[in-house]
């Protein structure tokens, strides 16, 4: 079990496919097989048409920051080393809203265009957002080895 295993539901049947894809650098969300609606966060059925038939589909790794906060206090021991860190709510170009960490060395504001990158933190893939005009770090490094 990874150190942030309590916070990241990597083994949960509902959310596991996200982490598996993230480990391969892919951004996936649920899609209803009946009405085609893209769905986030994961849910056992479609709230639009009530179908339970669901696939995971890859979406574009780009969007716009809808809102942004910066934590100056760690509310869990697992987060202590990350302080200060920022969390963004991003509206994906493909529709759904996705929450994710801002890359540690990135600066961004609400309304900025961002792209996804995936780092491994204690063996668990972590989705991070980076403003499109800010330089990428050495991507994919084990940020907290």
């Amino acid at each position, binding site marked *: 079990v990874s150190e*942030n*295993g*309590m*916070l*990241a*539901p990597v083994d*949960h049947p509902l*959310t596991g496919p*996200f982490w598996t894809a993230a480990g391969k650098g892919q951004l996936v969300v649920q899609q209803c097989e009946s009405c085609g609606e893209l*769905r*986030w*966060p*994961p*849910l056992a059925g479609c*709230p639009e048409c009530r179908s339970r038939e669901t696939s995971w589909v890859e979406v574009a790794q780009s969007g716009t920051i*809808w*809102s*942004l*906060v*910066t*934590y*100056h*206090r760690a*509310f*869990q021991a697992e*987060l202590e080393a*990350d302080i200060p*860190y920022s*969390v963004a*709510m991003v509206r994906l170009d493909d529709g759904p*809203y996705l*929450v*994710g*960490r801002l890359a540690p060395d990135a600066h961004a504001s*609400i*309304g900025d265009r961002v792209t996804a990158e995936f780092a491994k933190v204690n063996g668990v893939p*972590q*989705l991070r957002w980076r403003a499109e005009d800010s330089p990428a770090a050495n991507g994919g490094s084990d940020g907290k080895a």
Partner: protein
Amino acid sequence: MTTQRNPIAGQAAIAGLGHTKQGELPGHSAEENAVDAALLALADCGLGPGDLDGLIACKSVQGQGNDVSVGQLLGLNLPYVQSLDYGTCNFSLHLAVMAIATGMASTILLTYGANARSGRFDFGKPMYGADMASAAGLVHIAGRAGLALARHKYLYGTTDEQFGMLAVGQRQWARRNPNAIFRNPMTMEDYLAEPYMVEPLRRPDVTMISDGGAALVVTAAERARDLPHVPVYVSGIAEYAGVRGEHNPENLMRPWLRDSAQAIWARTGLKPADIDVLYIQDPTAVWSLQMLEYYGFCGIGEGGPFLAEGHTLPGGDLPLNTHGGQLSESYTWGWMHLVEAVRQLRGQAADRQAGVPEVAMYCSSHGFVKAAASVLSTSQEVGA
């Protein structure tokens, strides 16, 4: 049966109130705190446990203080007993009014008790197990509330000084309330000097968890008139549940608060200008900002300038959370807002009495899924 616009108006009244000391009560269970408050509420209206025919217990966030645990300590078998999972007292009050209106019960005790502070409950821990948001580090209510405030600032230009009027104003009221946990002075300079906790929120923008119990006795209007205090009638109730949750677009802005607002005004025939004293459940000050706007006390996006004008402060024309709210008085899951509303309507609020109010309103919510509002009045005609 013809449909009345507001069939419950004036049918039930709050007759008794009670609460424990708020703060840290080590060695007292949640149930004991609930029952201590309940006995005070019964004494307040000159009744005993044997006069009750209903009990509605509100469980704490930790799931304590349900109807069975409270009923056992009170030693009661009753015709109508329920537990609610939702705090704020509004949901309990609404259920009591419905039980009275349908004849299920006529004199109902509402209880809440918690020991989350001395019990060291971890509010930063994901409450429903691991989830996608906490995997990103979005933990504690300050994270989601902070996202909502940051968006509000981006859209409308709301400033720290404007938003800070909520925390600073609550403290001004709390300084007049001997029951408040935070009574030390806090000027705007003091507030702005506080570091960000989850930017754009500072520590004073978020409640501190406390132990305590609170209780109300709600009874049929004709019974209330025979009891010692001026009856505080329930003039209107409304709820709206946005239980699609995060599958609502922009759910952090809690857009369904607007639906509860439309319902309460439509049912009661009242408008914001009719409200003499206003109560808004405020685990974070963001809730007050949102509800001032959605309930129409100012326009959408105009909360910042409205607060800066001082309407909600002592001496203002819209006294807000005259006990200090959850930011300065105590957490108590919003129950003390209704206790204080009743005190103001009775004229019992001593140094913080806001004139001679006739109509009070309480707006509350359950996290990111539920909205509720109540209008109370010393006049049975209001809302009818």
